[in-house]
């Protein structure tokens, strides 16, 4: 077992975990924060994307023990976050989800796009989204939602 001290959505947590436990499984099974979804579990689909120290990472291929000392924000931790509030509304208006499985990771990736790349155009948004798979929407609604938030934030 390995000791772990971590901050998730503002809460300081210490735990003793198995080394092979992924950060995603720690978040879901140990903290019951089931908004973080697991798709491929090898870093391809993006469903498990969370913020680590403010930057998006794949929680399925990051061991919990390695995340020791970091600050994690999961989809449950964005209640008071302005860009995320804008994205939630835009996803709703643009029908940017159907089944919702990819949505938590999609929103975290989208937040990274609108905050890191304020001048992104459609091609860039689509390129950045290459790491998040959605099998329902065909991406049109998602891309439109992100573009609308980018435009709103530029105004």
């Amino acid at each position, binding site marked *: 077992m*390995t000791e772990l001290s971590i901050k998730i959505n503002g809460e300081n947590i210490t735990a003793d975990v*198995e*080394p*092979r436990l*992924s950060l995603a*499984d720690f978040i879901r099974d140990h903290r019951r924060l089931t908004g973080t979804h697991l798709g*491929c*579990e*090898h*870093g391809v689909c*993006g469903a498990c*994307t969370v913020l*680590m120290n403010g*930057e*998006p*990472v*794949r929680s*399925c*291929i*990051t*061991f919990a*023990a*390695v995340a*020791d*000392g970091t600050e994690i924000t999961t989809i449950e931790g964005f209640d008071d976050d302005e860009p995320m509030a804008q994205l939630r509304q835009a996803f709703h208006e643009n029908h940017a989800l159907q089944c919702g499985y990819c949505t938590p990771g999609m929103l975290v*990736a989208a937040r*990274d796009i609108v905050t*890191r790349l304020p001048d992104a155009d459609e091609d860039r948004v689509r*390129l*950045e989204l*290459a*790491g*998040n798979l959605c099998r329902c929407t065909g991406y049109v609604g998602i891309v439109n939602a992100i573009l609308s938030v980018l435009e709103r934030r530029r105004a």
Partner: protein
Amino acid sequence: MKPAKFEHKRMTSLDDVVKVLGEADGETRVLGGGQSLGPMMNLRLAQPDVVLDLSRVEGLADIEEAGDVLKIGARVTHARIEDVEVPGTTGAYMQFVASGISYRSVRNRGTIGGSVAHSDPAADWPSALLALGGDVIAAGPNGVRTISLDGFTMGPFTTGLGYDEVLTGFELPVLGADARWGYYKVNRKPGEFADAIGAVTIGSAPRAVCGATESAPFRVPEIEEKLAAGAQEISVADVRTVLEGHDAGFDDYELQIHAVALSRAVKRAFA
């Protein structure tokens, strides 16, 4: 998709890492960002007994220009290189390569040293750095040594590192302002592992690399000579003829996409 059991050891210094590697009983792997080893462990392709976590080892994430050498720490992430923290023409080349590696959320964790030490034939850095030239820095029981990038990558998951050595960084050449570079990766979707890589840097001594092979990336002297003689375009057919003379084990399709990659890398260098 859960890894086999292993022991996780948090390292606090390079001396610790070298000591533990030397005394290891069973398979021991050094974990940098974990973006290649992590998936391989989830798929149980890799089942190390012990994982040495470098997260708390300091001094491995610096970028420093020292005269005609660029020192890059092993734990510098692809994202930092994408965000142009490496200066000059070498930095511009590396920025282009880094921005095409996987996805941003992987680039935030994945490291240049981890990529080269892991040595997946389809990864970008083993090919990209071979086209740049320079040295790998490794720490071992007898101190620090440099290993030329030429020949460092020997094959899939096999490098010139000793079992008790750890890759700590790179010393890379500073390309002049007038140097040219081109990098082309064949893959079906942005961010995927490459099916073929072509990489060229054209400074005082041009270097051309055929990468993402079944084994190690290799330099192509015939192409380098053409570039040194001033060639600004080399057709796919010409590259293909040259590659046919190399014993790379390509089938017809692989030969073609590797020829396309290298030809387009040259084209990009002069675009």
